[in-house]
């Protein structure tokens, strides 16, 4: 790692962590209905929007079931609307390049992908979607999916905060959803979009510019409302780009400044939610322990990736490339990376993006070194290193419940978490939530590997091909959306199966966690005694970390051995 690379990473992480403390407190104020400084402007707006959705509907107290059902029904309707628009975009306005509607498989995959916060893309934005679709069928579900994840986490926090009514009122889904939009997502988007445009991201209703090049010939340059999509793409940990090249495209991410802004946008909410959680349950020390455990996994992942990409591969060395940075060039593995970001800016962006399950990329993960690519794959397999908006914190707490349970068994104490006894029902729910993730990754991946229609989509051979398929289903299950993009997955089989994996990975996990929250909320609190296993200590933090690593490794190691690990050994055949 170079000196400037080190400071670049340290500064970005430092700013992100620094922002998360006031922002986390702000989120807590917003969702506990306390006063915030935007109230004078936004209270009338909220009231107006609540009146449109229905005054009675937005005031209804909801238990976990009511909350989950409202979320499901709303998301289903939104997903259907997206599917409809994508299917008939040929007859809709703002279609300067006259793209026809997407076929049913691709439209299903895309609708499922964007409503579940995955943003896996089996289409290329610039050559398949009209400007209207980019706004009304891509930007729209990006807001919806981000708000859904955020409020689901908030409802879970309320359930864990030992509510006096036993969890009969975890808040109102619609009311929370409106506040997530008006107090968090929209204001930030409105402010940040002009920054990206200032740096060079287009924001126009013109579809294409025709350039007459100096050496003759023409270049068709696609344009559109790019910047506004870009901001919610990052802020909402969505990740689906306007263009196929995603954040590597000079229009989506024009300068090193926008690169930093985009990294900060995708980190800020998930980091802040840890602080918010601490405030909700009144245990700030616990929040710090969580922060530290996730921080270790994140910083470790970034360090490994940056060093691996800077070191490059024997194949690059043999082709006579400078791998050391210096003398006016950045060195390292620059295959699929942009000059303006270099190795550090690329590896930092992509590792953060897979840890926070955004899935946007500013460099081609398929061409990363085996170790660098494995870090991204691993972050999504754990799916809890801060994670996507809301759900990452849920997954991390699920591991926490396991850690308490295992520790309790080891020392012979009744497992308790946040003053509630963990009993059979809670452990069953957490176990289901834990198992569903590897199940919907490994089963379809095995199916793909064993079938001609699965293997024919591969862009690379041997172990790297296995990694491509494994990556695709891991990305879908974790609702990440990044890809080893050599895989040509725009086929009926991949579109259908990946779409289903995304839906299960999103909704089954959220519902199980809400059920777990509801179950805990209904229990009487037990007061802490000298015999209680404390969860807000460094010791327990270490145990938490160990649980995540052991469970994750036991589940996925065999698959990793056949993919990226095999590649690491094949890379050095004589050494």
């Amino acid at each position, binding site marked *: 790692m170079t000196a400037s690379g080190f400071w670049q990473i340290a500064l970005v992480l430092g700013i992100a962590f620094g922002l998360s403390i006031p922002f986390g407190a702000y989120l807590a104020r917003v969702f506990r209905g306390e006063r915030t400084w935007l109230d004078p402007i936004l209270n009338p707006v909220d009231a107006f929007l609540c009146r449109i959705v229905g005054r009675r509907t937005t005031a209804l107290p909801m238990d976990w079931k009511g909350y989950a059902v409202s979320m499901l029904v709303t998301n289903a309707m939104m997903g259907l609307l997206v599917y409809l628009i994508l299917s008939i975009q040929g007859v809709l306005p703002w279609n300067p390049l006259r793209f026809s509607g997407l076929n049913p498989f691709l439209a299903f995959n895309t609708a499922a992908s964007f409503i579940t916060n995955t943003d896996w893309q089996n289409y290329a934005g610039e050559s398949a979607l009209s400007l209207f679709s980019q*706004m009304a069928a891509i930007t729209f579900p990006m807001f*919806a999916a981000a708000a859904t994840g955020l409020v689901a986490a908030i409802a879970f926090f309320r359930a864990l905060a030992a509510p006096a009514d036993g969890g009969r009122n975890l808040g109102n889904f619609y009311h929370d959803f409106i506040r997530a939009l008006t107090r968090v997502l929209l204001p930030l988007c409105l402010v940040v979009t002009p920054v990206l445009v200032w740096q060079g991201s287009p924001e126009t209703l013109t579809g294409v510019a*025709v350039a007459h090049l100096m050496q003759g010939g023409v270049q068709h340059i696609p344009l559109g409302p790019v910047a506004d999509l870009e901001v919610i793409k990052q802020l909402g940990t969505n990740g689906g780009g306007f263009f196929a*090249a995603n954040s590597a495209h000079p229009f989506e991410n024009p300068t090193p400044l926008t690169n930093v802004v985009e990294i900060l946008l995708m980190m800020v909410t998930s980091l802040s939610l840890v602080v918010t959680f601490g405030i909700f349950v009144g245990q700030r020390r616990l929040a710090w322990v969580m922060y530290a455990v996730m921080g270790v996994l994140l910083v470790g992942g970034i360090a490994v990736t940056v060093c691996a990409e800077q070191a490059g591969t024997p194949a690059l060395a043999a082709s006579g490339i400078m791998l050391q940075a210096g003398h006016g060039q950045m060195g390292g593995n620059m*295959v699929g990376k942009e000059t303006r970001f270099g190795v550090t800016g690329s590896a930092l962006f992509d590792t953060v993006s897979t840890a926070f399950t955004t899935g946007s990329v500013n460099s*081609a993960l398929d061409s990363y070194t085996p170790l660098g690519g494995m870090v991204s794959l691993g972050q999504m397999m754990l799916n809890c290193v801060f994670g996507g908006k809301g759900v990452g914190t849920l997954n991390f707490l699920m591991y926490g419940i396991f850690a308490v349970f295992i520790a309790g068994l080891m020392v012979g104490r009744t497992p308790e978490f946040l003053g509630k006894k963990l009993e059979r029902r809670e452990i069953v729910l957490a176990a289901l939530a834990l198992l569903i993730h590897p199940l919907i990754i490994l089963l379809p991946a095995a199916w793909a590997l064993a079938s001609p229609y699965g293997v024919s989509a591969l862009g690379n051979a041997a172990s790297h091909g296995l990694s491509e398929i494994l990556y695709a289903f891991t990305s879908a299950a974790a609702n990440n959306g990044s890809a080893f993009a050599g895989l040509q997955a725009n086929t009926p089989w991949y579109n259908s199966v990946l779409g289903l994996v995304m839906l299960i990975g999103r909704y089954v996990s959220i519902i199980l966690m809400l059920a777990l929250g509801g179950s805990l909320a209904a229990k009487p609190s037990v007061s802490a005694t000298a015999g209680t296993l404390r969860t807000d200590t460094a010791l327990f933090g270490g145990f938490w970390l160990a649980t995540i690593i052991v469970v994750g490794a036991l589940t996925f190691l065999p698959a990793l051995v056949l993919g990226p690990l095999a590649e690491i050994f094949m890379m050095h055949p004589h050494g």
Partner: protein
Amino acid sequence: MWRPIAGGALRMTLLVWVICGLAYPLLEVGVNQALFPQAANGSLVRIGHRVIGSRLIGERFTGPAWFHGRPSACGYHAMQSEASNLGPLSRRLRDHLWARRARLVREHPELATERLPADMITSSGSGLDPDISVANAEMQAPWVARARGLPLARVQALVAGATKGRWLGLFGEPRVNVEVLNWALARSVAP
């Protein structure tokens, strides 16, 4: 309980669609067209009324009289941005690297024993990367100067004019914009 939930979901869907899917992007288009008209329309560069390219989107330059950008997986087709997506052990990747190096050495035999800047023979993430590293541009400067019969110092001055350092001295990498550089070259003297 079910009726208000379903009705609320429907009204919520339409409301969010109108606000986030239509009002927000259209508002941003209006505001940014007023604030940054040049950037909001793609940073296009014109000679007279004729658009000759975008300073952010690379193009393919051929021949010894121009600076060359990085290899591109999509041949600088701006409608098909993409990376090669070849894996680190890929035979095709190795073949590409060796072929690009061989072509350079054929044209410039003095490179036979040189190590090349990493960006010179690797293809970019977007296929449209407008930039090359400073080392890459410095290596090409004498070739371009010779082809155009220009003093090397003049070409090097143009390179310096198209060079950007790290943001705040820290973020990103120093780079030379090939579009800006070649346009400056064309203005300075015809090939």
